[in-house]
């Protein structure tokens, strides 16, 4: 876990949370004011984690506020010199990548000729994928071509990866070349 400096923004947030607690006591039942102040509650006591936006290549910093095992709020990271806390509409709605009902939350399998997905266990999925990859590699692998060692398979393709972390792209690159894959491409080409 990263240690954030207690910067201006966080200081405001922490003091805001304290003010909100006081306000309930001081304001009695003034609903309007209490409602206005309750906005502070959403990120009070939330954990703040810095991240970098997953959309374009500018690299804006975003702070992710999490509480009770959900993302409650995201905002521009004021400490990041690239965006100084500012975000576009895509960066602003980062939270919905977590909360969207459209997220797939279980591995899904579609059998040959089938018209539907079936939920499967991870273990079964990865075991089956490994078997398919091995089977294809084994019957298509070329060790030598015209007297030259070529160690390749031209029947497996790997596409994509421009939104992955560096460490992930490194492993994709290493695994695919390690298997002998020549059809290795991603979004930079298109």
């Amino acid at each position, binding site marked *: 876990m990263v240690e954030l400096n207690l910067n201006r923004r966080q200081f405001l947030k922490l003091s805001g949370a304290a003010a909100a607690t006081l306000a309930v006591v001081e304001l009695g039942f003034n609903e309007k004011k209490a409602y206005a102040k309750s906005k502070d509650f959403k990120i009070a006591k939330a954990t703040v984690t810095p991240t970098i936006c997953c959309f374009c290549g500018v690299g804006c910093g975003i702070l992710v506020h999490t509480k009770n095992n959900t993302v409650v709020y995201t905002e521009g990271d004021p400490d990041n010199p690239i965006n100084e806390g500012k975000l576009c509409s895509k960066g602003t709605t980062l939270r919905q990548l977590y909360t969207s009902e*459209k997220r797939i939350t279980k591995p899904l399998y*579609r059998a040959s000729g089938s018209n539907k997905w079936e939920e499967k266990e991870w273990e079964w999925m990865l075991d089956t994928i490994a078997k398919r990859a091995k089977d294809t590699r084994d019957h298509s692998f070329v060790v030598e071509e015209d007297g030259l060692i070529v160690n390749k398979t031209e*029947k*497996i393709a790997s596409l994509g990866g421009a*939104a992955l*972390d*560096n460490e992930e792209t490194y492993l994709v690159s290493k695994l695919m070349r390690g298997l002998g894959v020549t059809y290795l491409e991603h*979004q930079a080409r*298109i």
Partner: protein
Amino acid sequence: MGANPAENHPISFRWLTKAKENGGKIVSVDPRYTRTSAVSDIYAALRSGTDIAFMGGMIKYSIDNNLFHKDYVVNYTNASFIVADGFDFKDGFFSGYDEATRTYDKTKWAIATNEDGTPKKDPSLQNPRTVFQLMKNHYSRYDVDTVSGVTGTPKKDLLNVYKAFCETGKVGKAGTILYAMGTTQHTVGSQNVRAFAIIQMLLGNIGLPGGGINAMRGESNVQGSTDFGLLWDNLTGYLGVPKATVPEHATLAGYLAKETPPTGFWSNKPKFVVSLLKAWYGDHATNKNEFGYHFLPKGNKNYSHINLFKAMYNNELEGAFLWGTNPVVGGPNAGKEKEALGNLKWLVAVDLWETETAAFWKKEAGSDPSKINTEVFLLPASASFEKEGSISNSSRWMQYRWKAIDSRGEARPDLDIIHELALKLKKLYANSPKPADQPFLSLEWNYGTGEAPDLDLIAKEINGYDLKTGKLLPGFGALLDDGTTSSGNWIYSGFYPEEGKNLSKRRDNKDTGNANFLNWSFAWPMNRRILYNRASADPSGKPWSQEKAVIWWDAAAKSWVGNDVPDFKAILSPTEPGGTGAFMMNKDGVGLLFAPTMNDGPFPEHYEPFESPVPNAFSSVELNPAVVINDGDFNKKGYKVDFPIVATTYRVEAHWQSGSMTRNQEWLSEIARYMFVEISEELAKEKGIKNKDKVIVTSARGEIKAYAMVTKRYKPFTVRGKKVHQLGMPWNFGYKGYAKGDIANRLTPHIGDANTMIPEYKAFLCDIRRAD
């Protein structure tokens, strides 16, 4: 130019508006009057696919009016080099063209050399065979009248842009060119960028703050993923793949001899290659087996995206892994790419969503599931903040992302998926004696014993080790070619120089001078923020101007010092051999105005797009003669008689790329809800189309439905005396998510650039009519 940062890179655009507040000027060149244009000081419209004509005119203007930075050009570019006799240019063809193979013999474009192999030069630039004079002659044909007739840009707008931008050739001024896919996605995409490079070198704008040519990267880590070799022709760090078609590549020694230039920084290539082999194959990489060189696959053809899908379409592929990519929306001629997927036996899609690609077999995709035999495995992936790792932005800043929360549902990080898959395959292959299995069995895969791999071990492997001491390397300067060092990606070596010191995690945001933030994250190479910053100083080592000072030679300290890490050997004085070689990655240390390395000619030359409404005004050659043409059923070509309108694609601010990340969110779907086609008032009138009418757009590849958006942002062009209409549409839509719409790429062609094979999405022919 070819970019609309106000919509597609909004926070970068904030810095442009700040520059404007400080007296800077924004010039926007685009077929459409975009949101960027709206904030610009000067706007010029150009017909899609005519960037070289536009820039060729600027090159001519800067030379004719003596606005180029002569000292910079003489010292830091190959302007003074003498080109050998083989080079010639006649009616659209450079010398050495072979029509049968549609390729050039580049040896015809050689630089004349002295006996010791150094280039022959004329620093006065007067010799007619100097690069400078040949260039001047080449662009003498790009006069403003001809250019205006081709681009459709009014003459006064052209001259406004030329005058404003060439102002930056003055010492103390800088200008940058920001570009994106509007520049690259053409059959002349690479030469479009080359034209930018030429003008920026002429104006002395490279290596300075506020200068350069800046690619606006569209994906958060398209920089990093390219650095890490996710392209068919690259291993990590831009080391070329060994090829069965190059006889020298039969051995490691042959490969290194062939691919390593004698001078320039790439002369260190053997150190990078051997260290990579050590990182991948560990103890299995020895001096005896050429450090495992033969474990790497050697292909015998071009395996780029278009060819990949052509092979799939022709039943040549069996399985595919998709890592967060959606070609059914984002690929060219996307209808054919969707059809091709049905020829696979198995498809693995790793994503946050059920994308159009993962669902290609469904009825809603227009498919008949009972006829598609592909097994599809859809694996739920973690979002970026549900895992840990680094990404590299457009400026090569490698920034760390910490994990904020456990993954949603059963989603897992791609890292864990790749790792577990590798381990399962290792298990399946364990103890196999087959020669075919030795390359994979020799691949080192030691990332801890946990279910998830140890991220830190991966990061350190990328940085590299001194294998004799087991210590992390301080940077790529320490790499050796004898097998005693390792590095998974040499350009990143140095980001993790000591245990516990991953520099991508740095968050010290103090300005370390001249708006550099050297202690925030890490920029490859070696934390240098402005590439080629040696060029910010004159040959003697003094900054060209104090306003634009970056680094300078400190004679007392015998070192380059300044506000940035020198992108140069720090102790190489200006008077020593190589001491003025600012473009140190090139063989002769100079920038290439004349680039004999390109597939389609050493100077950018205008050709019309694959589909064009007019004949080429500059020569009798219509299409770039070095592009590969895929014809037949896979790529139908349209002609102006059926499809008279120029079309292009773009994105809207609320949606990202193929839209899977944004159309699956409620708010962004609400902001940009519908697929539309933007047309001019004049075209609307001709076709009887009103704003918000449903229309059908057709090309030789297919047709789509959309809403018409009638705007003043497009105007008909006058091209060679004739009226030419252009329209545009977003390519963010598909049939999944909250906001649905037809896929623009059903219309685009399967044809690519002569150097990179990037598809020509940005200029094709279409027609439009009302849907009812």
